[in-house]
């Protein structure tokens, strides 16, 4: 008798000819997630299993697997050679002796002469016999299900439970995305959601030392680390941004400070995205949340880039975003009270409906703007974030 974990894939099963691409990527991601645990990955007859792991580490492995995108659900099971008498004995031993239950058989091994329903009734009967009358069969309103898979490999699996996982697609199958990571509540959630759709994450953070502290940077690294539990390794690029902010402050009207700053951010993000083979930008923008996230503001900041910009949170309420942030455990870090670069030089009345032409006109007043961008990109600090 050996313990094993069954992995059920999510949307991948809908894929056609390129299914292999998705499953091999998922296998790779699972192996990376479990790299610190002894295990064997088994892919047989359209099913994935984790075997040969230490029983003492089972909880941690389940926890890791629940965070791998592309997995729909997992079950722990025992694997035993197919012998119906032995299976019945084992079921009577390991399942509760009280309550209502049903037995469900999946018989892939057609060499066994009995039909699934017959096997189910035999095993259920045996369990009733051993249970001193406190156990009852109820096929519809059962308290637990004894689920048995009889495979063609002459092995059978008896499942205990079924844990829902994160769903989505394996990270990497959709290419690379560059996330603008501020340190607030929204951007990590946006990253999570796009990783769930198969994007491998790169992140760019704008750092305004000495206006924002070392702690603010540490906080963003921590957020990227937490995100990486789901998305796998995140490459974080920290861009020194103070000189650009100084230039905007000196040359542009204060109410356009944030608008022009965000245009610079988008430009730099697109440059870094191209350098890192990313096909899209990702932001945590959310329509109407703040002055810089009105339709007009988004239009003005979006107009500096050609790349698609994914904004998975655009239609969410703040409460919904917070709920997701709590679930992925970034909320507590996000609300640590360190200033991010957007709050430095924050005008009292930022423009709510900026105009593209006005923004360009003001921007042109910064004569060395191209140099400033080159300088910032040249001094990017790269940090690999991984849990």
């Amino acid at each position, binding site marked *: 008798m050996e313990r094993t974990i069954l992995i059920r894939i999510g949307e991948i099963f809908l894929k056609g000819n390129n299914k292999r691409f998705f499953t091999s990527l998922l296998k790779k991601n699972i192996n990376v997630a479990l790299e610190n645990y002894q295990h064997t990955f088994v892919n047989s007859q359209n099913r994935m299993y984790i075997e040969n792991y230490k029983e003492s580490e089972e909880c941690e492995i389940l926890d890791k697997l629940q965070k791998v995108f592309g997995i729909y659900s997992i079950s722990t099971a025992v694997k035993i050679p197919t012998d119906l008498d032995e299976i019945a004995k084992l079921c009577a031993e390991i399942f509760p002796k009280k309550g209502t239950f049903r037995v469900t058989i999946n018989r892939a091994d057609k060499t066994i002469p009995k039909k699934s329903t017959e096997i189910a009734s035999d095993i259920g009967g045996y369990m009733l016999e051993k249970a001193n009358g406190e156990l009852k069969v109820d096929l519809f309103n059962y308290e637990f299900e004894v689920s048995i898979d009889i495979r063609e490999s002459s092995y059978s699996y008896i499942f205990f439970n079924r844990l829902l996982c994160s769903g989505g697609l394996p990270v990497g199958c959709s290419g690379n995305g560059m996330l603008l990571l501020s340190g607030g509540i929204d951007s990590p959630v946006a990253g999570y959601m796009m990783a769930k759709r198969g994007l491998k994450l790169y992140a760019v953070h704008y750092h305004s030392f*000495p206006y924002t*502290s*070392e702690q603010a940077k540490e906080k963003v690294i921590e957020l990227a680390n937490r995100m990486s539990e789901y998305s796998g390794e995140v490459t974080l690029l920290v861009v020194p941004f103070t000189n650009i902010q*100084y230039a905007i*402050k000196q040359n542009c009207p204060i109410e356009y400070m944030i608008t022009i700053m965000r245009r610079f951010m988008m430009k730099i993000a697109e440059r870094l995205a191209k350098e890192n083979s990313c096909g899209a930008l990702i932001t945590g923008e959310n329509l109407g949340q703040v002055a810089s996230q009105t339709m007009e503001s988004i239009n003005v900041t979006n107009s500096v880039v050609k790349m698609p910009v994914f904004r998975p949170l655009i239609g969410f309420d703040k409460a919904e975003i917070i709920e997701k942030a709590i679930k992925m455990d970034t909320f507590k870090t996000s609300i640590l009270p360190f*200033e991010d670069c957007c709050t430095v030089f924050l005008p009292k009345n930022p423009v709510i409906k900026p105009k593209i032409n006005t923004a360009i006109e003001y921007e042109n007043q910064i004569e060395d703007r191209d140099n400033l961008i080159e300088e910032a990109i040249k001094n990017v600090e790269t940090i690999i974030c991984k849990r």
Partner: protein
Amino acid sequence: MIFLDNASTTIVDKDCQEICNKYYFEEFYNPSAMYHSSIVVKNSINDARKTILKALHANDGDIIFTASGSEANNLALLGTKKQKGSKIIISASEHPAIYNTALELKQRGYEIVEAEVDLVGRVKIDEFAKIMDKDVSMVSIMYVNNETGCINDIKKLCEIAKSINPNVIFHTDAIQATAKIDINIRNLGIDLLSMSGHKFHSPKGIGALYVTRNINLRPIIFGGGQENGIRSATENVAGIMCMAHQLDKLSRKIESNYNQVKSLKNSLVQNLDKNNYFVVSDDDCSPYILCVAMKFVRGEVMLHSLEKYGIMIGTGSACSSQKSSKRIPRLFQLLPEYEKGIIRVSFDDKTTKEDIEYFIKQLNLEYSLLVKYMRG
């Protein structure tokens, strides 16, 4: 590296290395065990107690070792027996270790009264006399304020308190005072006093509460009954020995160190351009702490700007990142343009004249750069 944040912590004295080696690697025994080697350690701890009592000029009473100054403050406030629902006076400028513990006592049904303070955080004696009455079971007023360095007249306050209610328990948080100004417990007349080792060149993780003889404390940590049952936990022997050693050593030099630091502080104050800087601390404050407010430049930004020169200063609790802690800066009643510009420069006996000169030069340089980009 120029470390001017000595009110937050201090560098551990080299002597402590030897002491730690001794109690980590040689006399590492559990003081509660019954063999001879343990009894030797236990005796050393008791000698340390005596050393500390002597340094504080205490006739009698006891020293309860804790893991920190905060814990000593907690033990003082929570562990003393007080009539249910009675009044407790604290000053409005107490450190969070007192202030938040008092809030906990409020939750438990006590009435907390804040003694009014002046613009540097010093308790106003007259106002204190007005709020002190027979229903007050305990008073806790800090000796030296951790933000401005202001020194409270503990002797006078204690006298007033005891003259109105002889049974009142008087505690002082002396964490910024210990080993820096001469504390004479006999003279002060107080019942309880907190200290913290790492504020005077001992390792972190050790503190103590002085308790006068007629006070009975109830434990806030339970266990094997160490420290007469008041503070269970295997003793931090090395920490205890280091703290006692440091207090003994520094007590002998209190006056000379004080004068030396005072002249450094004065030269710093003289060199600050009064158009840009407002000195919050006054002449009566402890010279070890200097609180300054800058015009238009945020304290936190200055702190980070000075980092590149290897200069470390503090912002006290005035740091704008900690949005919840406006309690203390509000007491200074600063003009709006100074409100966010608080920095705290804190010295120790190892700070040199050259350190201060370099600091002033870089401070002025950075100020002139930063003030250009003040917030719109």
